[in-house]
């Protein structure tokens, strides 16, 4: 009873703080100075029509490197926790997967994978990018796992794709230091014409590697939670 009373008191205090914060909330009519600089100089300096992509990859590229590192840490910790000691044989009899899921998986998995790859290749022209494309690829992977529960994943392929993408991302960043302005500068490749697919310097390349890395890491987490990773001793 006392515990409930304290919880309600804390929440009421927080609600009072929130109300006093938005009592003076007025609509802003004009952008902040930082956003004005990004808006007016974004097209000339970076050359990508999608302003959010140019902020995530070029202006704030270091934060993206940190986020990719955090995802790598999460994937390795989950895989470390959930490994199985020896392969116990399944004791419960497995049901046959239903016909609807088998047919739908055969039709849908290639289409969804192509959609994911399209989303992260065109990240600098339309809304989209590496994270969205990676999540769509992981969803296609889950459909594959559900249709065939005995699908033996070759653990080495996923690990190779993930490591190569991570190293390539950091290498492009280091080339930015050697050949152009700073870390992850996108002027290592020519800027090209505004609005074509091979424009905006190294942004399509960087975002493709980020998309592949995010997709393979999320697939790794999901297959660990399903429990079919085998120990390669």
């Amino acid at each position, binding site marked *: 009873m006392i515990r409930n009373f304290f919880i309600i008191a804390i929440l009421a205090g927080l609600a009072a703080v929130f109300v006093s914060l938005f009592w003076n909330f007025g609509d802003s009519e004009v952008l902040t100075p930082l956003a004005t600089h990004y808006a007016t100089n974004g097209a000339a300096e970076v050359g990508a029509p*999608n302003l*959010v*992509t140019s902020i995530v990859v070029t202006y704030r590229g270091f934060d993206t490197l940190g986020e990719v590192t955090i995802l790598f840490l999460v994937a390795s910790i989950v895989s470390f926790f959930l490994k199985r000691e020896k392969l116990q044989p399944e004791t*419960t009899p497995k049901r046959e997967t239903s016909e609807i899921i088998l047919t739908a998986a055969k039709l849908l998995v290639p289409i969804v994978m192509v959609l994911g790859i399209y*989303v992260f290749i065109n990240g600098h022209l339309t*809304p*989209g*990018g590496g*994270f*969205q494309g990676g*999540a*769509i690829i*992981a*969803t296609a992977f*889950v459909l594959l796992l559900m249709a065939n529960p005995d699908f033996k994943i070759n653990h080495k392929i996923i690990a190779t794709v993930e490591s190569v993408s991570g190293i390539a991302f950091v290498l492009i960043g280091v080339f930015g230091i050697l050949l152009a302005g700073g870390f992850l500068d996108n002027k290592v490749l020519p800027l090209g014409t505004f609005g074509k697919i091979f424009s905006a310097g190294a942004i399509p390349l960087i975002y493709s590697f980020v998309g592949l890395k995010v997709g393979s890491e*999320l697939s790794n*987490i*999901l297959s660990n*939670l*399903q*429990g079919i990773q085998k120990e390669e001793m």
Partner: protein
Amino acid sequence: MNLIIIIVLSLVMIVMAVTAIIHKKLAVAVIATGVVSLMASVMYLLMAAPDVAMTEAAIGSGLSTIIFFYVLNKIRKAK
């Protein structure tokens, strides 16, 4: 018109969030969380943020719900 859509979305979000916390069954709570993410994704579109809407729809109401159900299934099998 936008105002009506935002009011309806807000009401559905808050009702589903309260259901997710109060209901006794765990499966209902997880599905209610997925519905909250879906409504938030439409609200991001009304706030002129298409990138964020795509990310929230794919990750919040897709992968997060699937991960919850995998873990619930393992707990139910081990009982």
